[in-house]
């Protein structure tokens, strides 16, 4: 396959960040516990990177302390209406951000579970450590394989071709595996091994030499080994991927200029055309709203615009488009979407129209298989209940949510992956 100079320049000038999974039985010991599932069940994980402001996503509008802690950022009850003037309350205590009308519609239809107060003991306020905690399901944050990588090593490794993928520029640590190379896809157009456009007849010779070199063995655990096996899988998997995703069609219009929607559309192209594809991972960044999380032209706060409103609107519209696409493909009963973020934000706002790093946060689990509703205890904003940094205390361990997804949806024993038994959070039958 040739790529022209013009294509390369055009592409490289406007980078788009946006990932698949292939078994790599020769990466290491292949004698582990194999559990080949024939299930059609699929999991889509959405990471909101930077620390989503949970208190302004699922809003405790009946709590006077929410208003006293956030004089500028809080939504008054009268402001809790979407653009169609419909109230966004989901209970006597909680309402969704007004920019999330699509999620609100899905919630009303019973397709959304909101798990409140999700966190872990001794919360870490570093983005990077807290992300590691969530990625590895290990509160000490000591690296190693990710929880989904461990799942893949057990459940997906025997599958033919692409069974998991990450959409984006970098493979998230959740998908770091010991025995599997999980592919990343940024852009389908460039997901291929290309040759000299001047001599298309030489492509076969080039591919042969490349493939022979990439099939070499290097010492396990070295950079060389990782690079070589990733390269081999990349080129091999690219051919399958290109052939498959070309067959995608859909009448669903994904919202433009919404990076999460673009990534979920790519996920849909994979999940709807490759039967074994069952684990997809997408990321939306930008949630680290230390300042200007709302617009405030001339000091006048406008909470319906600004960084946070844009981000949750992207999330809401993207999830709805993806859900509709799954429905159109007859797959809506097969897909569970799980959202997470490394922490919430400080209940008390700062003077920059923003919020600093926080702790526990609501999580969204979305899809037809989900039992819609509100789960977990809403953490108290009472001063005596806040920790020394002024942050809320968690009520649900994030590993309970993982365990529920693993045990109840993916039918894989969570104990082996999470290193312990965690309570079923209840949002799946």
């Amino acid at each position, binding site marked *: 396959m040739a790529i022209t100079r013009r294509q390369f320049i055009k592409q490289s000038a406007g980078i788009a960040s946006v990932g698949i999974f292939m078994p790599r039985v020769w990466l290491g010991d292949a004698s582990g516990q194999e559990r080949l599932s024939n299930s059609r069940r699929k999991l889509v994980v959405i990471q909101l990177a930077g620390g989503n402001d949970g208190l302004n996503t699922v809003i405790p509008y009946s709590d006077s302390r929410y208003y006293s802690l956030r004089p500028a950022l809080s939504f008054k009850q009268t402001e809790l209406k979407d653009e169609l003037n419909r109230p966004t309350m989901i209970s006597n205590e909680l309402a969704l951000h007004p920019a999330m009308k699509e999620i609100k519609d899905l919630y009303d239809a019973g397709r959304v579970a909101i798990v409140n107060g999700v966190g872990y003991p001794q919360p870490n306020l570093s983005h990077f450590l807290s992300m590691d905690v969530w990625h590895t399901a290990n509160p000490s944050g000591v690296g190693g394989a990710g929880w989904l990588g461990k799942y893949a090593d057990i459940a997906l490794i025997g599958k033919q071709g692409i069974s998991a993928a990450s959409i984006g*520029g970098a493979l998230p640590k959740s998908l770091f595996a010991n025995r599997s190379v999980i592919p990343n896809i940024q852009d389908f157009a460039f997901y291929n091994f290309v040759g000299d456009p001047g001599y298309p007849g030489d492509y076969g010779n080039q591919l042969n030499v490349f493939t022979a070199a990439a099939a070499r063995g290097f010492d396990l655990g070295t950079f060389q080994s*990782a690079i070589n096996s990733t390269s081999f899988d990349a080129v091999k998997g690219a051919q399958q991927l290109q052939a498959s995703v070309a067959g995608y069609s859909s009448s669903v219009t994904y919202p433009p200029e919404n990076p999460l929607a673009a990534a979920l559309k790519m996920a849909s192209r994979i999940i709807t055309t490759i039967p074994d594809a069952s684990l997809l991972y997408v990321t939306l960044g930008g949630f680290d709203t230390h300042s200007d999380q709302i617009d405030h032209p001339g000091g006048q706060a406008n909470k319906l615009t600004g960084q946070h409103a844009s981000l949750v609107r992207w999330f809401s519209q993207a999830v709805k488009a993806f859900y509709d696409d799954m429905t159109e493909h007859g797959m809506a009963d097969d897909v569970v979407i799980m959202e997470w973020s490394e922490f919430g934000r400080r209940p008390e706002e*700062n003077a920059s129209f923003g919020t600093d790093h926080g702790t526990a946060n609501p999580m969204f689990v979305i899809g037809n298989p989900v039992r819609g509703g509100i789960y977990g205890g809403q953490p108290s904003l009472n001063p005596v209940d806040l920790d020394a940094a002024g942050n809320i205390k968690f009520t649900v361990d994030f590993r309970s949510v993982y365990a529920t997804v693993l045990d109840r949806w993916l039918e894989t024993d969570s104990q082996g992956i999470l290193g312990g038994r965690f309570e079923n959070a209840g949002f799946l039958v």
Partner: protein
Amino acid sequence: MTNIAYDEAAHLLRRLGFGGPPEEISDLASRGREGAVDYLMDFSQIDNGGMDRLLAAGFDLSNPDDPAKFNLEEIQRWWFTRMAHTRRQFEEKITLFWHNHFATAVSKVNERFMFIQNQTLRNHALDRFDTLLLNVAQDPAMLFWLDGVTNVRGNPNENWARELQELFSMGIVDAVTEEQNYTESDVKEIARAFTGWTVRPPGRTDTNRLNYQFAIDPNQHDEGLKTVYGQTANFSGQDIVTIIAAKPATARFIAKKLFEAFAYPLTSSSADKAAIDKFANVYMTSGHSIKSVARAIFTSDEFFSSRAMFALVKSPIELVVGSVRMLGAIYNPGTLQRPGGSNILADASSFLNQQAYNPPDVAGWRPNLAWVNTSTMLNRFTYADFFASSRTANPNAPGLWLTHDQLKKLTKGSAKKTVSKFLELLGPLSVDAATVRKLRDYLQVNDGGDVVGFSPDDRTIDQKVRGLVHLIMCLTEFQLC
């Protein structure tokens, strides 16, 4: 002064620079270990007139309010012109190191501030760490990036105070003792010390339109007592920088960061911790001199050990700039960013996920295996193909060109010698015999796969030698430096 081996000199140049042609490597080898390191590090003595003339002729970055001449593409083109054309390679490499360390990005910060910060990093790259840290802290880019300008007394913003400690100086835990370096209370109190820090734009009549000045707004600065690391006083932000730069934990963190970026990744073994301590000690005894620590690392036995050789994964910028310098390709930046290639080195690096001035977050680009996934590898191979097939009839046109004449100069009389030559130029890479044989065979087969032999005629050079460059750049060995 004893010579060092050619391979050692090539290693030194790949690490302290981006690599280069055999003459540059041989010259370094003849200078001996310390001589070569000093030559690269004392770069102000190296004549850089050629690059300076290119910059003077090709850029006008004097007015940040002129978007046609001052924009992200232009400041990228400016930096990549430097990286590809400088004879002072270490100046660019250490500036890039600090850009990644104090990761600041155009995703939030105006291009003019990123350009100003690049000068700040450049000017203080080998200074005392205290001086570098203070200048970065007072520079507009960081003040906007981590919300210093809106950090005011009463309700401070913690963004800078946290990353200052976690990412820029000492880390959450000590690199050697693994003890916790600071508490959440320290974060809050340090945030108070930096309240009121702000930036004043150039005056209306100031002809230097990039003359942004640091200032402290007394009305917004918290003059109260702060308790930091167990001590209570009315600390200013500058006091905090001084206290942090003097901490042994900072010495270890900075020594480790420099070592891992230029030598090899460390483990938690006691030997590796001893290495950190050794270089941290240089930091403490040299008055926090970055240059002293860096020089100690670059002249150390560790740096030249077999463990260090090809122990790092090339970053995209290293890969792209390195390919140009190693093969003597032409990068002609032209006189203004235009579609079609004048900013091609920056664009290619972005395509490989390293967009200059735009690291992904405050922790910067992650090293080594973080660069390796199926998508980034395919993109590296696509770049290799693009580079290898960069033909031109007009090498004076803006863009990246690997000319026929240059390839002809490098091509040898036999397939065997030609493969050896290009493996040497692009590393020098040590590759197993079976793979070398495949590369030789490639040079000698036609499109149908029949062996037709190798003769270095124009057609063979244009097809097969370019194809060889592509294939070598796809090898696992080439991804390392």
